[in-house]
């Protein structure tokens, strides 16, 4: 997957996790928490959905990489390049 495709995948997951939010105005360089009503359980949902959809295992020490859209895509790009 290209970074753009990965972004689309993450956005699709976010639409399920934060269904009340307007994701059209999401700023990629700003943390999710600053823009969306999300807590630690929601971030675990992102991890779980990536595991279910793409069989990607994200170790706990890397959860901080999922802070914003930009950092998430950057982190996932090498992991999803062959998908």
């Amino acid at each position, binding site marked *: 997957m290209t970074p753009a495709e990965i972004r689309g995948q993450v956005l699709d997951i976010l639409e399920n996790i*934060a*269904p*009340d939010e307007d994701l059209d105005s999401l700023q990629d360089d700003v943390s999710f928490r600053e823009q969306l*009503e999300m807590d630690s*359980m929601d971030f*675990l949902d992102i991890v*779980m959905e990536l*595991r*279910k959809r793409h069989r990607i*295992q994200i170790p706990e020490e890397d959860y901080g990489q999922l802070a914003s859209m930009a950092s998430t895509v950057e982190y996932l790009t090498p992991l999803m390049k062959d998908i």
Partner: protein
Amino acid sequence: MVATTSSSHLPDNQRIVLTGIGLTAPNGDSLGEFRESLLNGRSGVSEYEIRYVGKTFAGICRFDERRYQARRDLRRGTRAGSVGVYCSNEAIRDSGLDWPNIDKSRVGIYLGVTEHGNVETENEIFEIKGYDYDTSFWSHHHNPRTVANNPAGEVALNMGITGPHYTIGAACAAGNAGLIQGAQMLRLNECDLALCGGVSESIRTFGIFASFRSQGALAEHTDPTRASRPFDMDRNGIVVSEGGCVYTLERLDDARRRGARIYGELVGYAMNTDATDFVLPNPDRQAECVQLALKRAGLVPEQIDIVSTHATGTTSGDSQECQALRRVFSSSDRTCFNNTKSFIGHSMGAAGALELAGNLATFQDGVCHATINVDQLDPECELKGLVLNEAREVKSPTYVLNNSFGMLGINSVVIVKRF
């Protein structure tokens, strides 16, 4: 023989009154809608399909989930939680309480449940089956969704209530048990306002249908609206339903001070246990439970206008309850008996609270709704004042007695007096 009512001798800060009702039933999402359905013989049972069991019948609630919850909260929580949130908010709205200015640390939430957690557990097992039962795909939401206090806790989260909250696991006696708990906590001054009653999400678990079917106790009929038929000769089991009913309970002095509209006063209650069988009821203990509630209320059977029966449509359960009621009420020509499950099926943890609500409106309209779907009355279920198929007018109704019994021999009775 007429006894005086004990509760009238209590100080007002020990007398407990019902001041608000919020409910969702398969045939109505407010007391007004529910009552209209009961008076017009409108069933809430419909066709239903659930994994593994296939086609069956159920009472499905269609309340507006989004009225009080965001989509995020609905995704995060449980169906029982949503039922509780809807009913609790509706009860507060109905009570006329100045909710923004209520001290939330003095509000208690006491919700009866028949079971909780089966729905989520079944869903998760179904989900990980697709991953060869790898438990790393098991949801982190499982524990907060399945802890036994979940439905009451979701109400607390939604409404910002910081007083005590918990559920009362009491099988199908749970709706009454929630009310009783609320009354006790008010009398103990543990809270100033109790949100109490019962909730059920049971139609979302295939296990309850499968278990009743294995037991030979799941209702079947060609017409879903006629499947739930307590007391009928051809009854063949239970229709499983979801639902909820939450009351605002207050001490009489508080209710009077704010000029509250009062639905009725909880003048008596009792709970006891059969201690005889996992499933089969014991009419001796049921009769004792009714008699204990009457004694505590200072009443004799002749004073009860309506008995809201528990009967679920099983062969033995219905006749044994009637046996217990004949024993207690044989001397009463006044008492009417009805059954609300014939309209909505068995709403499990909500049943006691919902069935009581359906009958409380009699204090306003003077009518006892019927037991519908009885084509041929089982002689074993004959009761002198059984109201069959057509609603009946009641002269100056003053007392409603509500039965609610459950597995493992749990029995509960509450008596509400017109205020």
